[in-house]
């Protein structure tokens, strides 16, 4: 067991998903805290989506912010991707992945809304084809 832990925590780095902590108690506590935070954020999301209590135009932004927070909670407490020095490679790969994700989603929405905006209304196109 201790050999394994030493191999896992050599100074070369940690594998994604491996923890710095090797004792069972704190690890268990980490998962419990993660689960608690995730449930709290999920419940807030579902509550906000159906409520009349908050300013309505803020709801989509709030849902997206809550989703990002929950993804962060999952990354830290379940996947153990942290900002620790030996986690640098994992974090850099994640950062690159996120860059591509934001380019794809943001770029698609931007381009498509621009096209929609500049496109002639459908009736006019139909008239021109006559």
């Amino acid at each position, binding site marked *: *067991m201790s050999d*394994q832990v030493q*191999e*896992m925590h*050599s*100074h*070369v*780095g*940690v*594998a*994604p*998903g*491996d923890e710095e902590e*090797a004792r*069972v108690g704190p*690890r*268990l506590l980490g*998962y419990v805290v*993660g*689960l608690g935070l*995730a*449930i709290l954020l*999920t419940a807030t*999301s*579902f509550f906000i*989506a*159906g409520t009349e209590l908050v300013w309505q135009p803020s*709801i*989509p932004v709030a*849902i*997206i912010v*809550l*989703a990002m927070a*929950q*993804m962060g909670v*999952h*990354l830290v407490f*379940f*996947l153990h991707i942290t900002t620790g*020095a*030996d986690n*640098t*490679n*994992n974090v*850099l*790969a*994640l950062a*690159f*992945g996120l860059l*591509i*994700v934001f380019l*794809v*989603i943001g*770029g*698609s*929405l931007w381009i*498509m809304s621009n096209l929609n905006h500049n496109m002639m209304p459908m009736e006019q196109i139909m008239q021109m084809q006559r």
Partner: protein
Amino acid sequence: MTDTTLAFAQGEPHNLRGMHESVVVDDGPAPKRIVTGYGFWIFLLSDIVMFSCFFASYAVLLGQTAGGPSGAQLFDLKSVAAETTCLLLSSFTCGLASIAADVRSVRWYQMAMAATCVLGLAFLALEGREFVGLVARGAGPTRSAFLSAFFALVGCHGMHVSAGILWLLTMMAQVFAKGFRADILRRLLCFALFWHALDIIWVAVFSIVYLLGSAV
């Protein structure tokens, strides 16, 4: 080879931490567990990039209902909440299985994995029921561009969960037959990463597809 290139080849280009230290210690390549985990992490990130394309097409096609039903008319948020609970709890039990494997407790490991499997199957059953209900109401993937994008995105996640359950059963059988060998522990590490990543994608699905989709 010159001395310089030799020194570079023997150094650790992957060891970014070495840069912070004044003395660079050369102790060979990284352990296999780190190399395997890192490679699988790269695969997961590419999988997430693939999902982002499905999310982008869903977001673009959200309003294109072709006169058919919109998300607000179709989605049953109670069922989505139940699916979310199943997947969240299964992520937790998967974490318990990782701990049990690290302390070499076969009984706790098999129990936690079985719980993960049951929760995953419950998730799939709820999702299947939802899909069947939608198709029965005439809101199948062929009805509108919005529904095509919906079935593609949520169905793709469901396929990943199904594949994950097959992998989970394989890991239970491998530990049963071969015990906690180093190679099997590496596969377990990858499986746990896969399962937790699926949960992260589900967070995006229920937020963007269901909660935002039913607001429109």
